[in-house]
């Protein structure tokens, strides 16, 4: 390795691999997936078994709000990790430890936006469609 890397020894530790995980960037999409499966599953059972649609719908809407809240938390943490306002480097194209660290933040942040849009889209039918027909 080159000299430059050694002087940044502390940074290396700060961005240690042990705390990083690829799975973290999928947290937002995982919330979307959970939300999707629950909405579809619960509604399917409701319609098949003739449960009361109104209550289920209210519950699912609250659940949707919760999912959005969860994604917001993930997104906020990712935004902090990306830290673009300090580094002024939105691209992170170098192979240093902090670049990798910010990059994972960036990716997680963008994914949480997509997941939020996904959750909103999937919630729309709950809002717009009033029953099981």
């Amino acid at each position, binding site marked *: 390795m080159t000299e430059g890397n050694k002087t940044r020894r502390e940074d290396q530790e700060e961005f240690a691999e042990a705390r990083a995980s690829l799975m973290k960037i999928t947290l937002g999409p995982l919330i979307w997936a959970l939300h999707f499966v629950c909405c579809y599953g619960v*509604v399917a059972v409701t319609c098949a078994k003739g449960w009361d649609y109104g209550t289920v719908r209210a519950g699912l809407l609250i659940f949707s709000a919760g999912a959005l809240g969860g994604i917001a938390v993930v997104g906020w943490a990712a935004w902090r990790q990306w830290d673009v306002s300090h580094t002024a480097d939105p691209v992170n194209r170098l192979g240093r430890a902090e670049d990798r660290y910010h990059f994972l933040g960036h990716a997680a942040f963008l994914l949480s936006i997509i*997941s939020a849009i996904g959750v909103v889209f999937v919630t729309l039918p709950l809002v717009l469609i009033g029953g099981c027909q």
Partner: protein
Amino acid sequence: MLAEPVARDIAEAQAERLRAAWATPKGWRYVTAVNNTEVGKWYCLTALVFMLLAGVMALIIRLQLAVPENDLVSADRFNQLFTMHGSAMMFLFAVPMFEAISILLLPGMLGARDMPFPRLSAFGYWCFLIGGIFVIGSIFFNVAPRAGWFMYPPLATMDEGPGSDIWLLGLSFIEVASIAAAVELIVGTLKCRPPGMRVNIMPLYAWYVLVVGGMILFAFPPLIAGDFLFELERSFDWPFFDPTRGGDPMLWQHLFWIFGHPEVYIIFLPSIAIAAMVVPTVARRPMFGYSWIVLSAVGTGFLSFGLWVHHMFTTGLPSISLGFFSAASEAVVIPTGIQIFAFLATLLVGRVRMTLPMLWISGALAIFTMGGLTGVMLALAPFDFQAHDTYFIVAHLHYTLFGGMVFPVIAGVYYFFPFIQKRLMSERLGRWAFWLTFSGFNLCFLPMHLTGLLGMPRRVYTYPTGLGWDWLNLISTVGAFVIAAGFSVFVWDLIRPKHRQPQIPRNPWDAGTLEWTHDVPEEAWGVRSIPHVSTRYPLWDEPQMLDRIDAGRYYLPDAQEGKRETLVTSVIDAVPVQVQRVTGPTWITLWAAGFTGGAFIFPTFHWYPPAILCGVLAICCIIGWLWTATAQVPEADSKDAGLGLSLPTYAAGPASVGWWAMWITMLGDATAFASLVFGFFFYWTASPDFPPAGALHPEARLVGLAALAFAANWALTVGARWLNRRSHVGGARLCLIVAPLAAAGGATALVWSVLSLDPTSHVYPAIHWALAVWVAVHAGAGVIMQFYCLAGSIFGKLTPRYDADIWNVSLFWHFVTLSALVTCAVLGLAPEAL
């Protein structure tokens, strides 16, 4: 240290040793090769041949439909043709092509010597070849499957003749091989990157491999579970999809499309990945918005799982359910769009050269965009109600498949051909091929939108005249032959002899990624020495790198012990952690694939004894292969990896690639199991008589006993690992003797508990049986593994220091124990709860 020159004679001697270690076998032994470069080539060519065969079937289909009331082929033949065309294109071309290309290219892009498990790739390839010939060959005997490429029951379950079985067993066999390749590719990307290549600077292709590999792991298992149920119905009359006995054809549709829709993206994303390698090169600048592309790849990967019901809009599901899937189908457009905009942006800010690969990529973008637009239309349920099962769908799906798969792959062939064959393809022929295929394609498929809107259904073998379809069909047929002409030019260019060509430049496109450090003329070692990478486009940013690689100044420049080796690094930051010994040429993979093929193919004709014999022989081959080649005790604990770095030669548990492979495989396996459990609850929601009145339930006490036995087995297995680590070898062996007894006891108790139920009478007992059989088969595999470890311990392959095998086996049992306990819960508790 990097700057220190290596003495000439030392470097020569090193190169000589490397060459010897990696030499490709010659003569008839060539088929025993396992190098990714050889296996990858065979794989690509085989997939191409299947593609051409399926293409010929399409031409026959088009000839039959050229004029009304045609009688070129019979209705039955026609059914076989379109079923085979669709199935072969999807299962024998599109998905295997991704794996083939990735096996061929990925190690080069990662500066690795080979994939982590070369023999597994070879095994996968031979399985694919055997299975593919079996499936596609059936059409020459007039017994091909004929219920459409998605095999809907009851049509497919009640179909006489072996067609459906050929589809089910042949393709399941190939799916298993696909999953093996996916495991290989994921582990390769995670653990075999060059030192310094952190996740934020991997080539984009590697990101796509990760995403697509992950999707295969979650998409294929539901289909395998579906195939399992389907084949149980076909062979033993267990009524999973038969509504008269509580079954439900809709379950198949769900399982099929949970696979089928992600499949479309499994096909599409790798092609985008090729584009992501070509676009920066032709634009001569780094990809614009790297993180955005990663986002769209990962995002598409996830969202594409929320779309499956859009293939079932007309099955009478509640409209609110359709709403969810319609919404998700529209949402997936966002990441897909971002991807394409990132490409366009890169092209706009760069200085683009219209090379041949770029020409094909442009064609792809144009066609795919059009397919995407009709896709957005179809995702709206009311529109789909109108267009469903018409030629509008045929047009839509070919626009997405040609634009999203065929064109980018051909672009990739032109782009990577110098890397693969060390030759160039012809510029002039390439342009001919492009314009013929492009115009032929639009001539063939554009009119189909109209044919469909005018009401012509898909999958009809003929039609009456006077409905306004005649001219449109004739034009489509002419177009199909123009495509065929374009393809012929392409294939000729691909295979024509090129030895009179002068030696090509090493980096003909002036690309920035590692694969272009390849050796011209060819060397089988992959890379002379494994570089340290610090940017996304190392060849652009570090001009001295090539010379240093060639001079053997980086890692692993030598093969002192004459063994094949590659570097294993950590998952996120690619810190070197191990020198991995990889396997070399062998016959055993061919034998294993042959017998595995027998185990799948004989049941098609209900010849069970030879099938069982083949199964046993396949297991023996695989055990022999693992025993002699994996997790070998090394001659020294660590070795010099170059650049003053000393690395271990053996790893166990999460540090080893084998453990990762097991983990990933079991994730897929768990998904298949989850699909079966899903089936159980699906029946419960879908039918009022589940369980039917007065049904017998599994024997609760036996189920409880099974749960206890499986728990004990788990504790013993983990205990064996623990004891062995702490040098209590005797105790560990004792555990490994008792554990299999417990496991076998558990499996027996579980099967016993359902023994009094009659699986042919109703779906309720049948699904109990299916779950019990599933667990019992897995327990059997686990028992073999335990004995394998016991033997390892006795014969010195498994020691307290070298214990990778038992780590992997206990990991296997974590998963199987979990599924056993879930099964016990379903069998024992569900009767009470429902």
